[in-house]
């Protein structure tokens, strides 16, 4: 399963609705000047995957709503991630075929009162339903080791011995 695109609406430095992508199987790079919004793209994934505000570099989820001199009055933000399954062919990236009908749409919205809700394929759900759905596709949200935030890579190797143990036990 791969991320096909990310649709953000009034999320952090994004005003209005933007489609980030499309992504394919294989490698994509995200490039741009300092402060342009690259880490905010990763933050949008953290947001949709239910991370708490402090892991998304902010104190409350309401601060994730776009707020700039030009547009100071946004009331909510939404991030939608569209996944799709691909035919695993062990070949070069170009040949990866998207399997029609396997699309999964995960979305989260946050509001000025710090509340947020989730939808899965358009239906309102609890976060745990999303966690289960992603787990079935091999995305282990309890472990989060497939996401490396800016400035974090050095401390992965420096985990205390007990933490490394929990990590490995968690994998099994």
């Amino acid at each position: 399963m791969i991320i096909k695109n990310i649709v953000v609406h009034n999320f952090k430095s994004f005003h209005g609705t933007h489609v980030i992508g499309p992504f394919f199987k294989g490698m994509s790079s995200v490039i741009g000047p300092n402060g342009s919004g690259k880490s905010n793209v990763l933050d949008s994934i953290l947001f949709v995957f239910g991370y708490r505000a402090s892991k998304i570099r902010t104190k409350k989820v309401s601060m994730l709503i776009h707020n700039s001199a030009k547009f100071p009055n946004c009331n909510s933000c939404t991030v939608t991630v569209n996944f799709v399954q691909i035919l695993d062919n062990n070949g070069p990236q170009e040949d990866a075929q998207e399997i029609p009908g396997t699309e999964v749409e995960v979305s989260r919205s946050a509001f000025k009162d710090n509340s947020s809700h989730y939808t899965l394929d358009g239906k309102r759900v609890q976060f745990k339903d999303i966690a289960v759905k992603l787990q079935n596709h091999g995305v282990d949200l309890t472990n989060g080791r497939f996401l490396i935030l800016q400035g974090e890579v050095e401390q992965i190797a420096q985990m205390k011995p007990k933490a490394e143990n929990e990590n490995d036990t968690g994998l099994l």
Partner: protein
Amino acid sequence: RYQEFMAGFMIINQKLKEVFRMISIGGDAELELQDTFNPFLEGIAFSVRPRNKAWTQIDRLSGGEKTLSSLALVFGLHYFKPSPFYMMDEIDAALDTRNVSIIGHYIKKFTVNCQFIVISLRAEMYDLFERRIIGVFKPDGCTRTVAIDPREFSKSHLKQPSPPP
């Protein structure tokens, strides 16, 4: 449960070694159980031997050496329990240009069946991504992105008429 853990541990340790030897070109790494009979009690220690040097605990290494050790662990774990996609933000900040290139090429080989989204400021990294680049820019306080296929660029570049003799 102990059996399962030890089996998994052996695989992860083996894969970590393979990956670290490959990216450090002559170095070695090791996960060691602090208490072989009771691994759940004391935990796991991570030792590294950079090329040409002695075995050291992680906290004595330089910034770049720690980064390589972390990445070897992440890539090693992937073999044991693959994740369908990875998203990494500036993992190359502490790497010298040669190591940026080594990690970039490793990711290139490694992502045969897996999706990698890499945020980077280093040309030695993003120049290797030939299929998809997401350009992020903020012309007036609001972020905009554009999806680029670098191969389309080079094709259209080749199509240009050759300059007059």
